[in-house]
């Protein structure tokens, strides 16, 4: 579970069926379980107007469970980058009445939310549920490079190599947590690295 700290640190809810004309689900790995659990609370015929876009985890599980919901459309993608053009196209052609549901890792929720914000959906209007890894997308404030799947504190920037304190300070605009150099005064001071974002 994502723990509440400072106000910019996102908190997630539990997916619940919303009134709407069309329902778009984007999920990765164990996010599928959040959709399957919500389906039990959904009115009959809810998935007749639904589209599910799913990025399976390395174990490839949960595809059958989502297909069993019989959504109007089901689409699998190997990565978020690979589904991005399709997602942008869907949102560009969408009308008011489309509802968005995001479930899975923080990285997936954050990146899908970033695209939806650009399309004009308010972040408070989206349903989100966190499942699976707490690994973070991090932006280095020094070189601006993004490092994916950060699990340690501190973490090394994959671009400039600085040792960064991974803060709870989060940007919806760039869908990343902020990383700030942890030993700027004395680079020889190297605090121990612990794996805390599992």
């Amino acid at each position: 579970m994502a723990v509440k700290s400072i106000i910019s640190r996102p908190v997630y809810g539990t997916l619940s069926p919303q009134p709407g004309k069309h329902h778009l689900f984007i999920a990765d790995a164990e996010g599928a379980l959040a959709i399957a659990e919500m389906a039990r609370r959904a009115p009959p015929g809810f998935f007749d107007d639904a589209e599910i876009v799913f990025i399976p985890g390395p174990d490839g599980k949960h595809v059958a469970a989502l297909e069993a919901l019989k959504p109007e459309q089901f689409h699998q993608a190997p990565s978020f980058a690979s589904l991005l053009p399709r997602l942008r196209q869907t949102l560009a052609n969408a009308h008011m009445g489309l509802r968005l549901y995001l479930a899975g890792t923080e990285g997936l929720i954050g990146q899908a939310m970033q695209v939806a914000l650009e399309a004009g959906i308010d972040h408070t209007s989206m349903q989100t549920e966190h499942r699976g890894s707490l690994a973070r997308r991090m932006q280095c404030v020094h070189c601006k490079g993004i490092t994916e799947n950060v699990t340690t504190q501190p973490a090394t920037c994959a671009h400039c190599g600085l040792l960064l304190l991974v803060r709870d300070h989060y940007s919806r605009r760039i869908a990343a947590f902020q990383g700030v150099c942890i030993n700027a005064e004395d680079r020889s001071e190297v605090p121990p690295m612990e794996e805390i974002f599992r």
Partner: protein
Amino acid sequence: MSTGTTKLDVVVSDVVPVNDLVTRFHFRRRDGELLPTFSGGAHVVVEMRDGERTRLNPYSLMGSPLDTREYTISVRRDDVGRGGSLFMHRNVKPGMEMVVSYPVNLFSLDLRAKKHLMLAGGIGITPFMAQTAQLAAEGGNFELHYTCRTASLGTYADVLRERYDRRVRLYHDDLDERIELDRLLSTQPLGTHLYVCGPAGMINWVRDRAASLGWPAETVHFEHFAAPQPGLPFDVTLAVSGKSIRVDEQQSLLEAIEAAGVDPPYLCRGGVCGQCETNVISCDGKFIHNDHWLSEEEHRSGKKIMPCVSRFEGRSLVLER
């Protein structure tokens, strides 16, 4: 005391009859300076000194926010109301000195929207006059659907058609023209925000259909100033200031509190903004809630009242004021 607003000393620079029911009033500053900046959807509270009595009514600013040499409001005459609009129509003449509040906006545009869909009913057109002027100047994307009783009572319909052409769609009740609301709401591009101003029934209808059709609450904006309704006189005890007051038939509870020399906070005086929310210490009787601020649950609880528009019928009422 109006929260966060200072007063503006103005002079009535023009009074223009618009149609059988509506008259437009222009105000300029007495010192000749520019008036404070406002944004589309803002209102001012106009002080009306009518003999012994002072009325304070909110009116939407309808001029372009780009021109602050004057403020303009349009007032629809209400022959059965408490007399504020009749005072404006009968007593206010060019050259008269008046006092208005600083502008306050409780119905502002969300400028993150990709498109603004506006629905006006009757005199509810006034905030949209300012909002469309603001958006047109910025190249904003908007569409206005305006329902009026008849063409001759379609206040500013001609002006709007001339300014914005096909971006304005008119519906006349007497010709049985109706907004196809479900179709309209279902064909708007993602990122559209909805704005509705008009009679309470229209606002409720639009909000209800929008919610059913999947419009998130954050995208639906509405404004309805409830005019304080006249009613039976009632007595109130103000516990904090230790006063007992009587609210007359034609007076609002807020006005009666002010007349007793107690100065509660207020902003809109129309049951919208929440500033004058007052705790009820005890009561024996029933509340007549007319505001859009308190939740239904709060209305039922009998623990809060909005004195600007709501009344009471019964044996006793004690307020924390």
